[in-house]
């Protein structure tokens, strides 16, 4: 493993080679009625090392197809995908990639640990190390107990956790996760969030397809809005910062004091909205509000911004 840094060839200007680069991808499926369905149309984007990129769009937007094209699980009708500057099918490239499909299925008779050990061996780990690694990764995704049962007995959430453990097993430099939180309980969703943050911290590139806007907003650096196979817009989540929404008990008395104390905030009805750089700024903001005399009913780290953007860009609503 390469510790998350791309070792592939760099461009003449020494820009690091993106972990994933797709250019003008197009995929057309024949439809049942005899026509054609354009699943992906002229899609171009990159995912760099240490970056978490989210794919957002309605069902049928082409998110899963885009992932499968990137991994060469499907052949594009036009365009190309490169992983670390190389063809996705090269064996040395595959060693650096992890993929968790949506709703994965496994051989019913094998246990999760046996499947994890199998994949670890395929990645080149010796048999004994593979078994130890299998146990470690099962533990890491909160899957230690079910991993001893045959895969045929797994619930959707358990299968999802196994799929995730398989994707992370080889310490990949590029991870593609297709709806990884589907079927997970709240604890599983929180664990997933921590995993994504730790992946970014060790320099891995992550492409995430999820419908959970709040999660996408919390972990992604960049979001790509897709509809009908086309990239509508790229939104830099980190660059935009976060926003806090505070519900006040005494909004009528607070208009003046708040405008003085926190001029960047806006008061609408009983809601006071303030942009913040990160979650860490929230406690200080609350202290500032209380000091200004505000009675606070509720404080919410807004996920609504991405939701509004989504509705505006993808659904075309104002």
């Amino acid at each position: 493993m390469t510790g998350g840094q791309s070792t592939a060839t760099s461009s003449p200007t020494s820009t690091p080679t993106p972990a994933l680069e797709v250019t003008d991808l197009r995929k057309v499926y024949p439809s049942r009625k005899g026509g054609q369905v354009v699943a992906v149309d002229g899609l171009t984007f990159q995912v760099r090392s240490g970056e978490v990129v989210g794919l957002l769009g309605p069902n049928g937007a082409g998110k899963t197809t885009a992932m499968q094209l990137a991994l060469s699980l499907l052949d594009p009708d036009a365009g190309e995908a490169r992983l670390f500057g190389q063809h996705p099918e090269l064996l040395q490239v595959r060693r650096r990639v992890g993929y968790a499909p949506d709703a994965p299925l496994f051989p019913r008779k094998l246990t999760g640990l046996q499947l994890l050990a199998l994949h670890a061996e395929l990645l080149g780990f010796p048999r004994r190390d593979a078994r130890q690694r299998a146990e470690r990764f099962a533990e890491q995704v909160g899957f230690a107990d079910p991993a001893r049962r045959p895969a045929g007995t797994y619930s959707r959430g358990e299968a999802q956790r196994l799929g995730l453990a398989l994707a992370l097993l080889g310490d990949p430099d590029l991870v593609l996760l297709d709806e990884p939180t589907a079927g997970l309980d709240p604890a599983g969703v929180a664990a997933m969030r921590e995993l994504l943050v730790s992946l970014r911290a060790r320099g891995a590139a992550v492409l995430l397809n999820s419908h959970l806007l709040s999660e996408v907003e919390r972990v992604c650096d960049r979001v790509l809005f897709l509809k009908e196979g086309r990239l509508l817009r790229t939104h830099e989540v980190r660059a935009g910062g976060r926003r806090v929404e505070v519900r006040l008990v005494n909004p009528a008395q607070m208009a003046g004091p708040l405008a003085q104390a926190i001029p960047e905030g806006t008061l609408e009805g009983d809601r006071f909205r303030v942009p913040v750089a990160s979650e860490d700024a929230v406690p200080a903001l609350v202290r500032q509000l209380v000091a200004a005399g505000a009675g606070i009913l509720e404080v919410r780290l807004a996920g609504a911004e991405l939701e509004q953007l989504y509705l505006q860009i993808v659904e075309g609503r104002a």
Partner: protein
Amino acid sequence: MISWPIARAAAREKLRSPGILAIGLCFAAAAALSGRAGAPREAFGGFGIAFLLVLTLALGAGLLAGELESGHAQLVLLRPITRAAWVGGRLAGAGIALAAIVVAAWLAAAGGAALRGGQTLSLSAFGVLPLAVLWGFAWLSVLAAIGAVLPGWTNSAALVLAGIAWATLRGTLPAALGHPEWAAWLAELSNYLGPQDPLQLAFRPREGLGTALYDLSWVFFAWLVAVLLFNRRELARRRA
């Protein structure tokens, strides 16, 4: 050519299937009842050989298609492994399971013979083991080749149907067309339509060697065809 982690996983999976274990038990029981130590044809003759055939069909059913249809093959093939090694691994895994059950049946046959005060074990009694495995493995390769294009367990069903169709044709065609001399030609042709019974090598080393080598070539060529067909199927799926 063969991914051994895949082979081990496939063998484990097959040996945990209740259906295959039931067939294996019946096979061992039949071998124990009919086996006479020193007479290998009896150990794997009669009902024994029928169970070996059924076991091979069960082990080969959905050998490739099962994994492909579940989607797990896609995850495996994203690892640094070639499609040929995957096919080789699945085939070798089924072969390991076959060998394990054949050994168990042979031990049951030897045990049954010993209890009945049978003859001492001869070299040919041991020789029957690899030959029986070779025969089954050659048919497994054929099943893998058919399974590279057919869905689910239909590869075994197709082989059984083809066998019945050929037997019917052989039995009826010469008489129906008024050419009884064709019967001998069709019988000769049968010797080339799939792996042959190599157990005779255990008795007549010189005469049986050809059949054993012929079966060995079936293993190789059927595996090659399986890889080629599987490649075509995968590339077609990706383009679709």
